[in-house]
């Protein structure tokens, strides 16, 4: 049985000032197996973030439904952990308190929390920074804390909305390896939205390519590269072949978004 089922989910935004309603998302069907790492790749504005927010329960679909372990999603909840593109650590809490936030909401005793928090601080390599405020951290460290905060709740599925989008290239590469390493060791169902082709291939066991707005699924590509993956994989011939194929797929969509006609050969 699938861990997550997206059944005919679409989203239409009401028109602004009596204008035509905007269709952001065509009906989408997607089945996600347990412990799969799925990346959703698409040009900006294709509705991939909207789809993720619907799975999180932060937005309601116009049609269709989302099932997690057979139960319909109606609102956000701790069974679907989320990491946002913007830095969403609570600025008034330290790193450790941020990671403990979900556990505290659940009513867990402080003693018990401390042990879990320590293990996740360790997992994302932030030992020694437990008592720092978010403002004192670099962007990469903030997103590591956000990942630890989402994972500490032990969610059924982890949702990531371009989590490394605001980071510089080098940091982004390190963050990819860190997250992938965690997934390889701990196993978790992951839905990861990105517009970066290399990132989508490197992380995924399956890449879903979306079309330009209104978004639908254009292709569904299994990535059978072996684990554990090392950053050198990105320069291997197999990787390049996948990248070439997806680049072609996404380029057509990006041009549709930007309203650019392909150059005549």
């Amino acid at each position, binding site marked *: 049985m699938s861990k997550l089922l997206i059944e005919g989910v679409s989203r239409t935004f009401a028109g602004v000032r009596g204008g035509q309603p905007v269709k952001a998302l065509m009906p989408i069907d997607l089945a996600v197996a347990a412990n799969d790492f799925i990346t959703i790749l698409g040009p900006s504005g294709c509705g991939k973030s909207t789809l993720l927010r619907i799975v*999180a*329960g*932060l937005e309601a679909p116009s049609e269709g439904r989302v099932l997690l372990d057979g139960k319909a999603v109606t*609102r*956000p*909840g*701790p069974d*679907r*952990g*989320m990491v*946002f593109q*913007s830095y*969403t650590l*609570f*600025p*008034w*809490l330290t790193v450790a308190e941020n990671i403990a*936030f*979900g556990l505290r*909401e*659940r009513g867990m005793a402080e003693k018990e929390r401390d042990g879990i928090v320590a293990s996740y601080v360790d997992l994302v390599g932030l030992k020694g920074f437990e008592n720092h*405020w*978010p*403002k*004192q951290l670099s962007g990469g460290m903030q997103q590591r804390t*956000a990942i630890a*905060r*989402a994972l500490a*709740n032990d969610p059924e599925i982890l*949702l990531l909305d371009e989590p490394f989008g605001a980071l510089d290239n080098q940091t982004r590469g390190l963050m990819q390896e860190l997250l992938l390493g965690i997934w390889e060791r701990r196993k978790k169902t992951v839905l990861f939205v990105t517009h970066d082709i290399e990132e989508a291939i490197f992380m995924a066991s399956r890449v879903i390519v979306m079309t330009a707005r209104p978004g639908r699924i254009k292709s569904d590509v299994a990535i059978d590269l072996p684990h554990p993956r090392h950053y050198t994989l990105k320069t291997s011939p197999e990787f390049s072949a996948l990248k070439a194929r997806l680049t072609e797929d996404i380029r057509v969509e990006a041009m549709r978004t930007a309203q650019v006609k392909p150059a005549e050969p």
Partner: protein
Amino acid sequence: MRPLHPVSPSIRTVLGISFFVLFVVFWAWITLGGHVNRIFLADPLSMLRDGWRLLVEDRFWLDILITIWRVFGGFVLASVVAVPLGIAMGAWKPVEAFLEPFVSFARYLPASAFIPLLILWAGIGELEKLLVIFVGSVFQIILIIAVKVGSTRRDLVEAAYTLGSTNNSIVKRVIMPANAPEIAETLRLVLGWAWTYVIVAELIGSSSGIGYMIINSQSRLATGQIIFGIIVIGLIGLLSDFAFKAFNRWLFPWSLA
């Protein structure tokens, strides 16, 4: 001069102090130089002399203490009512829809115009003075806090929901701590306004306080005393502002780090 170019701290201090010096020199020149009638404006030296006599002989420090107590009493009263209401209005839109129109209207009612009415209701005792400050501050605090709370970062609220927060814990664990520094800053601002209300309250139907001393001095043409009173108010305002700022910094280290 290059626009927006910063100035070094030492030059900033020197420039800041030199205006005070220029101001006092100008004041001394027009008064001691005999350019204005001393009945209307005392010179700086007799102002200091009058002030010293006030403090030593007339026990003016008691008036100062009474005024301070009135400001803080009325201000604390207003805060206790206004902060929870402002948070409720910012957080829950039906509460805002219910109260916002009235509070916006009440905000423009001048506190000083209420004084005759408040004297009828509460007499000319301490309660009336506290109520003037209360009326003057409470609606302002409510509105400013409601706006700040209403603009709480939505992504933080969403993050908390995905971590399992309920509606009530969103208010308690996200909206309140996220806005606490802004709320404290608002209170600091309104405390400054409360200082103007208290003097108005003391000008009418009062027998103590800095404002009473000022109105009393007017009938005796003691302009030195009036100016001394005004300067004392300014100094206390400045000091309480500094203290409030330092307290906020100590309370919310995360917002500056």
